[in-house]
């Protein structure tokens, strides 16, 4: 096991008082907290800082650590506990302190747990760990509330070891889920030790990008390419929706960017039913022949419209 120099981690002297330790922790925590920094490796760095603070902020734990440190200074290479050493908290260890190092779990986990009952890092004492995973959902599944099978790994503590056990579940996707929404599967997280409750599994819905539709709230947006003559003369088209095609009249003189609304063909949520918005995009043929060019020229002669008239 590797010895952890908590003073060095927090950048404080061994004689530092609690105020200095707290100040140093706070400064580093703000710099490396995963919610305030997106730089790679910050999560590991933050865990290290939190572990050091967890030990040094508690007078008894700090005194025990100082004893270990003195002993460690005289032992070469790896670190083992002094013969007969045990934490003053004693008792059986129920579960590893998942976020902290082996060093912490070996010497301070029990004491940390007993003091955590008030608040900090406490949930794993009372129930198994909550798990969180992303669940990709197709738009078609979001509108019809279909079922999905999921496989995930649950950390199980047994024989002083944490093992990852594979678990499979079938989940009914609630009707009208939106991107980023969380759903909770009660008791499907990590098992609680002894008679404690299992943790929960949180699934974060991730709507899979659709080849045709974009999502805007509960509305769907479809890019609708039209030829110039379809836009000018109007036409009848079959428009794809998430549940089949619908016939639609494209009015004459439709313009690029114009939105045509198809009621009730969007997504659903608790507040209502969205629409499908077809956004017109005028598309010209990729290649022309001489006859087409002649017709374009004829049109250019007949139509004096200048879309850039307001530039001058």
């Amino acid at each position, binding site marked *: 096991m590797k010895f952890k120099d908590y003073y060095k981690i927090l950048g404080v002297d061994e004689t530092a008082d609690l105020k200095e330790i*707290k100040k140093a*922790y*706070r400064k580093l*925590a*703000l710099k490396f*907290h995963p*919610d*305030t920094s997106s730089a790679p490796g910050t999560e590991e760095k*933050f865990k290290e800082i*939190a572990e050091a603070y967890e030990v040094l902020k508690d007078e008894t734990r700090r005194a025990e650590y100082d004893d270990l440190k003195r002993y460690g200074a005289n032992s070469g290479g790896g670190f083992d506990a002094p013969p007969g050493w045990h934490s003053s908290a004693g008792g059986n260890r129920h579960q590893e302190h998942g976020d902290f190092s082996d060093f912490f779990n070996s010497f301070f986990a029990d004491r940390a747990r007993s003091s955590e*009952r008030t*608040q*900090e*890092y*406490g*949930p794993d*004492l*009372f*129930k198994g760990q*909550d798990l969180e995973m992303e669940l990709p959902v197709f738009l078609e599944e979001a509108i019809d509330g279909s*079922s999905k099978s999921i496989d995930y790994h649950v950390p199980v503590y047994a024989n002083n070891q944490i093992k990852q056990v594979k678990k499979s*579940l*079938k*989940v*009914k996707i*609630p009707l009208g889920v939106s*991107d*980023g*929404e*969380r*759903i*909770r*599967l*009660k008791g*499907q997280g990590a098992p609680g030790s002894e008679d404690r*409750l299992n943790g*929960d*599994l*949180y699934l974060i819905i991730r709507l899979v*990008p659709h080849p045709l539709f*974009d*999502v*805007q709230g509960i509305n769907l*947006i479809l*890019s609708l390419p039209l030829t110039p003559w379809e836009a000018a003369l109007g036409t009848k088209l079959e428009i794809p929706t998430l549940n089949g095609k619908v016939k639609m009249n494209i009015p004459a003189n439709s313009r690029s960017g114009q939105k045509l609304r198809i009621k009730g063909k969007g997504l659903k949520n608790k507040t209502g039913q969205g629409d499908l918005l077809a956004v017109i*995009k005028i598309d010209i043929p990729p290649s022309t022949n001489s006859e087409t060019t002649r017709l374009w020229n004829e049109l250019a002669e007949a139509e004096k419209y200048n879309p850039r008239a307001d530039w001058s």
Partner: protein
Amino acid sequence: MADVTLYIDIEELCENESIDEEIIIEVVEYGIAVPHRGETLAEWIFDLENAYWIKKAVKLNQQLLLDWVAISMVIDLMKDKEKLVQENDQLRSRLNRLIE
């Protein structure tokens, strides 16, 4: 078929996450989270998004040693950031369809 829940009541939230009721009241008073329904404290029910922000606020309070005013500001910014990232992704996808 696993049971899916979209809400959590205050009792369960306090028990599961080891959060004191007083802290949840504080989080609600600072506008960090809003109960989905419930007239009295005992009846408060939160949707999972609000429950997520409560847990996040408690974690920030413990780990960064920030007061509730600072946490309220941080969480507002985090919510705004999340919304902007989502909007940005949607707009980028729409733009790609228009220029492709």
